[in-house]
């Protein structure tokens, strides 16, 4: 992924003039072709965990890219296609043709990467459209990818449609330099505390939240503890003459 300026949203550039095929059902969810590549979030170096190399000794200075599953092309399989058709139609009607950055179907779960500026509108559409009807939000969870330049902070929403008995996942990213994501509290009031928690732990500022304050940590706490650059802390513990170092300084096989 190329680094992006803070606040700039990636433009979806199909690279060709619109033609008749754009209206085919399988093209109703516009997706950047680049988004189909596995996403490299960092490169791991060390002695452990490399596959595909002849060197099993570990002394070769092994380098391994860490990739998250890339976008999935149609058809997705199962009810995902029916959902994608309805969702694509709804997006077109709502005037949000570029809201979806990419769609990942992995391990039987569908993840929609939503452009952050469109999040609130998309959430409203997902909740209110009778064919979608995701009336239940299981809250938001933050994930910090410090080496994924321009997309360091992810907010992940799990939506449930009790009407259709379906679950989807929305993922919204924002850069560390501009950690703003629109709040979905106007659509899903249940996210009130969840967004406060994610703000508390990751420093993502949910614009439009009624009272975005810390919820778990004390009000005057410095930093956001769940970020990867925030130390775990801990002290060495002596037990029967041996000293056990704190967990974040122990040998890791990651």
């Amino acid at each position, binding site marked *: 992924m190329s680094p992006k300026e803070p606040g700039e949203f990636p433009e979806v550039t199909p690279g060709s003039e619109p033609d008749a095929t754009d209206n085919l059902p399988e093209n109703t969810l516009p997706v950047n072709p680049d988004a189909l590549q596995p996403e490299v979030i960092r490169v791991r170096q060390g002695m452990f965990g490399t596959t595909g190399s002849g060197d099993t000794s570990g002394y070769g200075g092994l380098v391994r890219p860490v990739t998250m*599953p890339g976008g999935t092309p149609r058809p997705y399989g199962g009810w995902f296609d029916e959902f994608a058709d309805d969702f694509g139609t709804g997006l077109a009607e709502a005037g949000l043709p570029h809201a979806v950055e990419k769609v990942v179907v992995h391990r039987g779960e569908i993840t929609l990467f939503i452009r952050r500026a469109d999040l609130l509108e998309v959430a409203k559409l997902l909740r209110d459209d009778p064919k979608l009807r995701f009336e239940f939000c299981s809250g938001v969870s933050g994930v910090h990818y410090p080496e994924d330049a321009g997309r360091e902070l992810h907010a992940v929403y*799990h939506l449930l449609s009790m009407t259709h*008995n379906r679950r989807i996942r929305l993922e919204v990213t924002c850069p560390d330099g501009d950690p703003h994501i629109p709040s979905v509290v106007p659509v899903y009031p*249940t996210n009130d505390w969840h967004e406060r928690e994610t703000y508390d732990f990751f420093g993502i500022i949910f614009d439009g939240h009624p009272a975005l304050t810390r919820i778990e940590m004390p009000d005057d706490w410095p930093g956001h503890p*769940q970020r990867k650059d925030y130390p775990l802390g801990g002290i060495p513990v002596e037990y029967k003459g041996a000293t056990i170092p704190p967990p974040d300084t122990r040998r890791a*096989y990651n």
Partner: protein
Amino acid sequence: MTTTENTTRNREYDDPYAPSSHTDEGRVFTVTGQDWDSVVTGVAEEAEERVVVNMGPQHPSTHGVLRLILELEGETVTEARCGIGYLHTGIEKNMEFRSWTQGVTFCTRMDYLSPFYNEATYCLGVERLLGIEDEIPEKAQVMRVLLMEINRISSHLVAIATGGMEIGALTVMTIGFRERELCLDLFELITGLRMNHAFIRPGGVAQDMPPGALDQIRDFIALMKKRLPEYAALCNANPIFKARLQDVGVLDLAGCMALGLTGPVLRSTGYPWDLRKTQPYSGYQDYDFDVVTWDTADSYGRFRIRLAEMWESLRIIEQATDRLAGLEGAPVMIGDKKIAWPSQLAIGSDGMGNSLDHIRHIMGESMEALIHHFKLVTEGFRVPAGQAYVPVESPRGELGAHVVSDGGTRPYRAHFRDPSFTNLQATSVMAEGGMVADVIVAIASIDPVMGGVDR
């Protein structure tokens, strides 16, 4: 600043149990529950009806270390807010520094009244990421269901017991904890621990059923069938109990949807949403049980649902016990030796410890087994990159773990959507406009567990 000056000026109320001080917001009384005279006199002098009461976090009726900020007009609550975070222990952060299997040891401690559900949702997520959902042995699945349902009974018993205690029904508390003890005895027999079991592991469960466990479970079922009617006899038609609970803490279906409430609170509105039925996991589709609903959407309905759900859990436990009887000697851990936890425990003359058979095998018979043991215990297994969310129906509602892997031996991120955390948001709508005494009942009917709220 001026606070010191004001404090000295107010020495006329020199009550060691209820000292008072002046702030910008008005006079502040610190009450420890010993002597209310100075508060009563002081408030009367202020000639103001509006009082802000800070209740908790150390209070016997707030269902844990929950802090309530109540704004009162007389005895009516005009605003209610929760202060949480007093039990935050950084479990999710800690899990990022341990192997995938060790993560179970941490997440079991979150919602300490339903440890098996924490373990189960985390393990189901990890198993989905590993792509081994279909390879979990049947016996492990049945044991998971068995433990989860015994756990549902023990959790509901605590909900009813503490809820009763908070409104003064102390007998409900004593008999509730009496029966819960039976559940914990079963846990101790099967897992070795009464709480914090870390028994459900990615790939299966830690150990096989101990000898004699099925008989004890059958005794437990028989005893519970005698004991559960006691709760109904004590409470169901008790006029005081009903007067305290009926039409208190009402939240209708639309409110539950908007605020994301699940579990008994949602089912008390009459909507039969239970993940065991709607999105079955661990083979729940193979068991015969009913989803209990009520139509009053109040605290009394939630109490009756919990009571009836214990009967349904007993039905599931009976079926699971019968299935386990036919699964003697079947594996309880996945066959894949690259994932299955290699170590085995056994009861020896000095208590539970390493299985001597296993030690003999890895030290004397198989170099490969020794390597696997060493690698899996020190390094752990790798989980393919991706994310998963597999919620389960905990006694309090939808409990889910958002598990993210970057392909390493440790969780990249594990976030728990705890139902207590979400459901507690309903405190304001349930309590505002009611009496102070009803706040306690409303919160007890949500049954938040602060270990799960704060994690």
